[in-house]
């Protein structure tokens, strides 16, 4: 082969390679256009300049755009994925009075989950802002994930939740209900299936507890919290190096054995331990026939419910076919406060509360696997008054209102 032909060959080869290098595929990005509206109850609220946030449920990245005066927010150059979209607006007490009749600030929210965005697509969605007046009693902390570094000696026996008086008046816990919401699956496993029941009028409880008392026996002062422990035991003393808590000074604890025995059923003495010095919560509903107790699910959504209703209507879980599992229906209108705690950032499909109670959801770790980490979900402090009393954040959106702490912090906001 002559040298000149070899040179031509090399030149041609390099040219081919160079030309093929220029064929870079264009980005397959999309556009999301969000239009805000308000519910009938808040018709007339200005919808311009409201931050709208989209969250990519796969990589957890967030983007925020303000609406224009027409209430439209446009997100450009969006990667194809599945998105949660949320928006909220705080109404001052003066403005809120015109809509709610209460001279109290309120946050109205809107939320859409799992919006699929394909490549090179323009998605248009409308979000409707709605809300209810914030409660005086709020759920301050939920510790359900279980202890860490305990050699599995404690596991989840140290669970608790805390109710906090966020108002400036004494509130009474007597006869209020606590509902553990269903389903127990919260999106951790790849085979988890959402419940599929509507959340507009009812939520669904697997377990219901009730505060004891006759009406004014259990006051809760402003800025104070009451801890309800599964077992009122000092687990820190048991395992000093573990990430756990001292529940021995809880205001209430749960104990189901005696109640179950009265119904001809059996309890679980390994996990369910009574502290005779701590008042027991009343046992109302437990959907496990035998060996059950009032532990929370790993990723526990709970609701604080008014004292009036009597719960009688149950519904069967449509996703479980191997056995019959029933939940108690609780009217949304009777809920004072609720928090949706799910497995991970992409678990929106497993929400157990409607948007009017909790327009978002919270989680301990973006990618789940938070069992036995000693982590707890705690409501944030909005402000601290001169008296030292804390006012907690309550926008009815646990995505914003809650933070992760470790170890758990029972009664951490109490004045003394």
């Amino acid at each position: 082969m002559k040298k000149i032909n070899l040179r031509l060959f090399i030149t041609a080869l390099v040219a081919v390679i160079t030309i093929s290098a220029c064929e870079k595929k264009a980005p397959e990005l999309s556009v999301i256009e969000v239009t805000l509206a308000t519910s009938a109850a808040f018709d007339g609220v200005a919808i311009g300049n409201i931050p709208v946030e989209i969250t990519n449920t796969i990589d957890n990245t967030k983007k925020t755009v303000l609406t224009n005066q027409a209430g439209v927010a446009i997100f450009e150059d969006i990667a194809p994925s599945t998105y949660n979209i949320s928006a909220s607006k705080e109404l001052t007490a003066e403005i809120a009075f015109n809509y709610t009749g209460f001279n109290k600030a309120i946050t109205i929210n809107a939320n859409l989950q799992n919006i699929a965005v394909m490549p090179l697509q323009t998605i248009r969605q409308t979000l409707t802002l709605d809300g209810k007046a914030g409660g005086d009693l709020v759920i301050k902390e939920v510790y359900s994930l279980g202890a860490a570094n305990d050699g599995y000696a404690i596991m989840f026996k140290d669970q608790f939740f805390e109710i906090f008086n966020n108002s400036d008046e004494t509130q009474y816990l007597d006869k209020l209900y606590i509902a553990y919401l269903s389903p127990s699956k919260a999106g951790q496993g790849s085979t988890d299936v959402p419940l599929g029941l509507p959340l507009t009028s009812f939520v669904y409880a697997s377990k219901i507890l009730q505060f004891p008392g006759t009406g004014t026996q259990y006051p809760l002062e402003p800025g104070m919290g009451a801890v309800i422990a599964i077992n009122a035991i000092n687990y820190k003393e048991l395992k000093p190096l573990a990430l756990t808590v001292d529940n021995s000074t809880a205001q209430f604890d749960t104990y189901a054995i005696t109640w179950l025995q009265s119904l001809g059923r059996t309890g679980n003495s390994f996990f369910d331990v009574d502290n005779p010095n701590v008042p027991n919560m009343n046992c109302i509903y437990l959907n496990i026939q035998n060996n059950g107790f009032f532990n929370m699910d790993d990723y526990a959504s709970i609701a604080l419910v008014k004292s009036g209703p009597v719960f009688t209507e149950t519904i069967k879980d449509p996703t479980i076919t191997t056995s019959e599992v029933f939940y108690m229906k609780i009217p949304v209108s009777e809920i004072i406060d609720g928090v949706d705690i799910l497995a991970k950032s992409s678990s929106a499909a497993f929400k157990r509360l409607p948007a009017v109670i909790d327009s978002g959801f919270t989680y301990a770790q973006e990618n789940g696997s938070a069992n036995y980490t000693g982590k707890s979900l705690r409501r944030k402090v909005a402000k601290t008054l001169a008296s030292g009393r804390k006012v907690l954040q309550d926008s009815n959106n646990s995505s914003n209102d809650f933070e992760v702490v470790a170890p758990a912090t029972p009664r951490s906001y109490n004045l003394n």
Partner: protein
Amino acid sequence: MKKQLGIVGIIFLSIGSCFAGNPDSTRVTDVIDRSLQREEYHLIFDKVPSLLSVWEKGDYALISTGFSSSGGDYVHPQLFFSKNLFEIKSESVKSLPVNGWRFFGSVAYTNGNAETGKWNMSYNLPTNGSPYYYMIEQEGTWKSQSYDFNVAAQKNISGRLSAGIGLKYLGDLHFRTFDSRNDNTTLKIQVLPSLTMNFDGKNYISIGLLYQRLKNEPNISNKYQHGTEPEKYHLFFNQGLGTWDNSPSQMRMIDSRYGALISYRKFSANSSFDAIYAIDYGSEEWLLKSLSTLNNRREDISRYSYFSHDLSLRHRSVTSSGSFVTNFDIKNIHGDGAVYKESTNAYQDNYQFFSITADLDVSYIRSNSVLRQLSAKLRLDNSSQNDYNYGHILEYTNLEGTLSADVISGKNRAVNLIFGGLFSYKMNLSGNHNPMAASSNFFNTEIAIPAFAYHTSDFYRAGARVCSEFDIAGGYRLDISLSGDFLKPIKLNNYENRSSFTLNDKYYLMSLSLCFNF
């Protein structure tokens, strides 16, 4: 059983030939020439085994052992912050002129340990441009072993036609010894048959085929309960530049590669010229290890297909004072990646890779001079990655120039001493990093930005070596070599505040080898 017998046969072929035949001392002067001999084999004859019919360097055999150590903070953030390797190797060429056969055999075993950086659960990151690998934030410590068997056989079919075949069996065992664990085994089998036609004793044309099968089997597990930072132990499977799976299943990888080559060799009394062009097509698939028919899942989750072009040119001319050797190699890889989406039951194309590397190496080797060798090298490295799921582009071009020289102390055949030094400078010519929709994605902030800062940094490298060789009993020759390289960054061209290293960091490489030549 057949595979084991085959391996035993390869071992005997490799080691047994070391102790047979005449030593090559009459043909090879010293370690410089010996290196040239082996370089020529690996650049030309390793790719075209049938060309062994014109192997002019004579038979040789060696057993070598060595230790190498490298470490430092000026390193790619996902790769090796330290690496120690012990190697033992045997290599030989053996001719049977009466029967028209020529053989090559090589066996190598390495054992070592290493520390890898963040976001690496796979020890070695892909070299074919594939974006697929397991990753975890926690840095890892590893133990590694490799077993490499390489044989080639050539037979003269007629006065003009020669046939050859090369077989490689390369096994790597990489065990991550820090939670999370990965017992990763890799097996590469390569078969290269070729034919060479001799036209007039001066011009040779060869054609060859390549089949390669690479199987990578990670086995990821946790032995102990993790600490209180579980996010650092979360396992991801990377699929692009921001595309990843955060709940990956256990998978194995099969990379099947098919190729063809054509080569031309021209001989004259004082010169030789070789040109080899190879084109390969490869397909890498990641397959679920356990498949549940109840869930009706697809077996292959990710796939990467690529084309590779490689053109190698080598020219050697011999003069009265020495010889000039020029090597030029240009290689291009162009690949596309796709991931399977259960939601749409289809593969979504998301990734492109393109790279060109070109090496030019000119050496002047002097026969009777204190200045034994002078060489100059130039390397151009261009790489471009595009994850169009995010519009994330990462591309750069670097140029590295190296000058080296070796001097020999006298011409004492019994014992000689060679001192060598090298200096190189790597300069970044261009760089473009645009994350677009992936700007807040942790892949961009944790991996892409630090890696881009490393790739586009300028550095200098200084190295030195000392070699000594002498005759030992039995007419054999022993050479001992000690070398060391030192790299230091000079300039950070991008992301000065977010790189994983500073201008005060460095990287070193040291090696000691002992080689018995037969």
